[in-house]
């Protein structure tokens, strides 16, 4: 009877959207490191923990009265709630019971509540016995003021902070990866300590002015000495005892340096991943990211220009030197192989990335990155560099939207010089932007003063601009056929005549220096002169 009711309740809860949503919300909040609210939650909890610990310390000597009690009650309630919530979302009891029930139905046997509940409880018990859950539980205890010993558990409140600080977790993870080395070290250190304390006890305990009266004193002295702390409250008086001290001090140096080197090397190995994780976490908060793969000379120029435009960038490069260089320039950098599926997947390029640019000097790598990125995201714009003519077709097949060929650009510019050295200057100036003359596309908006005016009325020379042409979605009869270029749904009219009517959504392509261009764009934005 109870079993039936319970199963029905489980089915009801499992079906309830609100129940599942609530549970999912708390699961994300408490366990998912990428949850948006997680940061605030962690910060808030840290503040509560620190203030409660400070209050408890203050209370050792002072009396806070009702305020202290109220605050403590609040903190404990919070902790208990958090503990219960974690316990709740850790496993899905409903599912377990339902599964058991359905299995019984399927096998046509009688449903027995016992095993199902036992399994559900086992799951919960698994959680309760995890180290962090134990800390959580112990952190609640100090509020039982009657028991003085429980004050020790105040420390667990501080340990609780581990939950809210990612770097501490990382630290624990790094150390746990070096378990084997640390175990070896502790065996060696333990042997040294035990051997030396036995020896010092044997030699010193008979000496008349000895401070070592039992084996615990000897152990205490050994540990103080081997750790190179050496308080000096216990000192050996016999020559044998001093000899042991010398051996212990020397081996103590070895133990300490061994320990340091283990920790340092563990971090050196982990540092890259730690940094990567940080960059990835930072990146997930940014959308509209432009990813530049390869920070060679071309990549550097692209990054420099885009950074000047305040674009959000992420640089990926394999070479640690290049990575350092980019980091020094203040960019977000990932050290890694951009052609690896794993890296791009972890970047979640389909959600956060606006464009991928492959600028490495190696065509094989560029093709591979393009393929990987295209595989992960169908619609993502990919710009790739082809260092050889043959690669262009391969990049197209791999799915690159635009392909830039340095040899083409250079070839054109350089050839221009052979026949027309002056035109070369103009072209190079336009292409490189070194001449402070820029070329800009100005869109004619709906309320723009250029809308409905002829080119002559706009009077480009007045703005110190040269009109190169107009890209327009509209039909124009007045422009001679010879100077139009088909651009898909739009047409480019080169050097349109003076009576060419400019309409909204037209794009004016103009040459001019930066000031003139900005001034013109400003003016154009206003609805009247």
């Amino acid at each position: 009877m109870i079993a039936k009711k319970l199963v029905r309740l489980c089915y009801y809860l499992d079906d309830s959207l609100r129940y599942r949503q609530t549970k999912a919300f708390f699961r994300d909040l408490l366990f998912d490191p990428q949850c948006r609210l997680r940061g605030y939650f962690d910060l808030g909890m840290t503040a509560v923990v620190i203030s409660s610990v400070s209050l408890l310390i203050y209370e050792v000597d002072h009396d806070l009265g009702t305020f202290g009690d109220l605050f403590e009650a609040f903190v404990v309630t919070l902790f208990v709630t958090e503990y219960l919530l974690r316990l709740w979302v850790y496993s899905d009891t409903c599912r377990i019971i339902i599964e058991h029930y359905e299995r019984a139905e399927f096998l046509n046997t009688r449903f027995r509540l016992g095993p199902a509940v036992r399994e559900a409880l086992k799951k919960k018990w698994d959680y309760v016995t995890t180290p962090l859950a134990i800390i959580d539980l112990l952190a609640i205890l100090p509020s039982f003021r009657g028991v003085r010993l429980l004050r020790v558990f105040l420390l667990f409140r501080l340990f609780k902070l581990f939950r809210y600080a990612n770097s501490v977790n990382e630290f624990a993870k790094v150390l746990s990866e070096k378990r084997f080395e640390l175990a070896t070290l502790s065996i060696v250190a333990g042997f040294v300590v035990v051997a030396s304390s036995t020896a010092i006890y044997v030699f010193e305990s008979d000496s008349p002015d000895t401070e070592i009266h039992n084996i615990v004193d000897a152990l205490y002295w050994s540990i103080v000495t081997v750790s190179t702390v050496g308080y000096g409250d216990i000192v050996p008086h016999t020559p044998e005892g001093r000899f042991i001290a010398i051996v212990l001090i020397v081996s103590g140096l070895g133990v300490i340096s061994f320990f340091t080197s283990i920790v340092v090397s563990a971090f050196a190995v982990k540092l890259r991943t730690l940094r990567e994780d940080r960059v990835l976490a930072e990146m997930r908060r940014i959308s509209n990211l432009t990813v530049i793969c390869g920070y060679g000379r071309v990549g550097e120029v692209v990054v420099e220009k885009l950074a000047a435009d305040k674009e959000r960038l992420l640089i990926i490069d394999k070479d640690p030197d290049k990575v350092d260089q980019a980091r020094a320039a203040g960019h977000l950098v990932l050290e890694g192989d951009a052609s690896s599926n794993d890296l791009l997947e972890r970047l979640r390029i389909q959600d956060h990335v606006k464009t991928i640019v492959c600028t490495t000097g190696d065509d094989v790598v560029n093709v591979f990155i393009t393929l990987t990125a295209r595989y992960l995201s169908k619609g993502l714009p990919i710009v790739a560099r082809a260092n050889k003519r043959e690669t262009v077709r391969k990049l197209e097949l791999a799915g690159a939207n635009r392909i830039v060929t340095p040899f083409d650009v250079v070839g054109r510019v350089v050839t221009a010089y052979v026949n027309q050295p002056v035109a070369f200057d103009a072209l190079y100036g336009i292409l490189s932007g070194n001449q402070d003359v820029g070329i800009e596309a100005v869109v004619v908006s709906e309320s723009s003063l250029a809308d409905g005016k002829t080119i002559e009325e706009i009077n480009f020379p007045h703005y110190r601009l040269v009109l190169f042409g107009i890209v327009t979605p509209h039909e124009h009869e007045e422009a001679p056929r010879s100077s139009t270029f088909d651009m898909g749904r739009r047409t480019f009219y080169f050097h349109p005549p003076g009576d060419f009517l400019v309409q909204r959504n037209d794009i004016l392509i103009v040459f001019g220096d930066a000031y003139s261009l900005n001034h013109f764009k400003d003016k154009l934005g206003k609805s009247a002169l």
Partner: protein
Amino acid sequence: MNATEGTTKGRRIAVFGYEKLAVDIAAYIAAGENTVLVVDSKEGNLELARKAGFETASVDYSTDAELREIGIGSTIDTVFCLLPDDAENVFLVISVRAIDPQVPIVSIAYSPDSVPKFLAAGANKVVDPYEISGLKIWRLLKQPMISEVMERTLFSELDLQVGEVTITRGSFVDGLCVEDLSLRDHYNLVLLGVVDRELGDEFVFRTRGLNHRLEAGDTLVVIGPATEIQKLQRDLSNGTRLEEIPRTREGTRRARQRGPAANGRNGPEEC
């Protein structure tokens, strides 16, 4: 950019280095009416160049005698330094400049720091391939419309070109102010700027607001269809007067009615 003018046909060009970028650049240079001599010290590279149909020469760049032998200082009209290393290119530029003080030298610089060294060594033009490629990528990302327009007009095989036209004595632009110069009624050309002999041989964009009287020997830089550029050059060298040139554009009546006041804000005396 294609060769547009007939004045400089059939140059003999030495291309040093036939590796990486240079392979495809050489193909560009050879596309005009120029003859290309590929010079390299590595037999493997020369083999490739021969397969691509180039005339080749194996030369040790550090020996002047060998450079003279292939025609530096005599038959070679332009030198391109496309070796894969900046130091080698600088040395080559110095060597060539020492032999021939006049020959135009164009070099590639792989690092921006080398550019001044190349200029000091005597190169006429230095091109940083990575910089222009990077800028091109930037433009693709930030100004896709302009990239497309440039791609479809300036960089396509047959259409618009940047061309230069030298002003001859007695032509209709001789003596005009840059600001007053209006080609738009008569030619389908956009005037980009001028090279004024009096102001040095630097190219000056028209948008700089240059108030200077054009004289014979100055050069106009224009963009437009090749035929229009040729027509302008022809009209200038024939000394044709503006009134004799048929208008290509309709509908500029208003400008004509308003007369010179419309575009002559600065009187000629101010030039």
